């Protein structure tokens, strides 16, 4: 995660809640959307709204003990984990084939690429997405936060409330599973 942090001149209490909220969405909206999208795919839009609704309601209680980004990531990942666990438990809502294909096309789209390259990228993206989807939710979360969002281990530990050792061991398990599944795309 980039080191940019929203600061509140004059102290948090002096800021108007709506203005603060708008600033947060403008600064971090895309990043949170990206994270949620990587976690849940095409259902991200609704979930992002839920995340920011919680942010809006919790904003008056945010005292800055944690970094703002850590706080946002914590809310977003908890929402995603709840959503994924609920979906797994109820077994009522999986990505339909159309939604799955649409996600993959969106992710693989590279402006200016040839049709062949586009097809290859689509296959690879589809495969990566499939592999990520098959990971247990905790492993998927840690690999998304580290390898896709670029968070440091200690940031991941703060976001998920796990000990540092747990972050490392789960990341190792996630990568081991992904390496097995994606071995055709890896050299050596």
């Amino acid at each position, binding site marked *: 995660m980039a080191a940019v942090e929203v600061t509140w001149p004059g102290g948090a209490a002096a800021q108007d809640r*709506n203005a603060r*909220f*708008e600033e947060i*969405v*403008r600064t971090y*909206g*895309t990043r949170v*959307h*990206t994270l949620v*999208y*990587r976690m849940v795919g095409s259902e991200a839009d609704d979930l*992002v*709204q839920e995340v*920011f*609704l919680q942010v*809006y*309601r919790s904003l008056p209680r945010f005292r800055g003990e944690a970094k703002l980004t850590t706080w946002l990531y914590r809310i977003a990942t908890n929402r995603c984990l709840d959503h994924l666990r609920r979906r797994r438990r109820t077994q009522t809502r999986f990505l339909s084939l159309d939604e799955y294909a649409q996600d993959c096309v*969106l*992710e*693989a*789209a*590279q402006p200016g690429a040839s049709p062949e390259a586009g097809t290859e*990228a689509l296959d*690879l*993206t589809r495969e*990566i*997405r499939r592999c990520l989807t098959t990971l247990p939710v905790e492993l998927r979360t840690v*690999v998304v936060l*580290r*390898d*896709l969002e670029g968070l*440091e*281990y200690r940031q991941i530990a703060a976001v998920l409330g796990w000990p540092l050792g747990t972050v*490392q*061991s789960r*990341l*190792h398990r996630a*990568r*081991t599973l*992904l*390496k097995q599944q*994606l071995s055709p*795309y*890896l*050299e*050596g």
Partner: protein
Amino acid sequence: MRCPDPVQLEALVDGELPADRAAGVTRHLEECPACATQVRRIRQLVALLRQRSVPVLDELEVAQLVESVRRKAEVKRRLTFAAWRRSLVAASLVLALGTGALTWYRLNSPGRRPVAPDAFALALLHEHRRYEVALGAAADLGFNVQVAVLGQ
């Protein structure tokens, strides 16, 4: 040097090893093809995963998101307020009914006539300062003074 733990090799790739430890592991990689291969595969995997692009929000979508969340928050706030108001009205009704029922029971149940504290409270209401006067006043009004005296 013995082969490092796979978790340490990943920490090296992620730039999470302390400098002295990283230097030791890096030296080890030069002489251990197996560990060097593991590190290369981790790097390839990370690079592969990072190729995935995702749809990003444009300015308009951000504005829509802000507006939508505010609207939902306002609706939720109103619903919460309405729910509180309903709960308050219901609680008041229950309290009023309960108080009424209790009062009726105390006044109409023969075995449960008001006792000393009630008589004393009544005496105070009538501005009597002496306890026996209060009991007398209570007896005149039909309170169960005998029970009250025994209760003292």
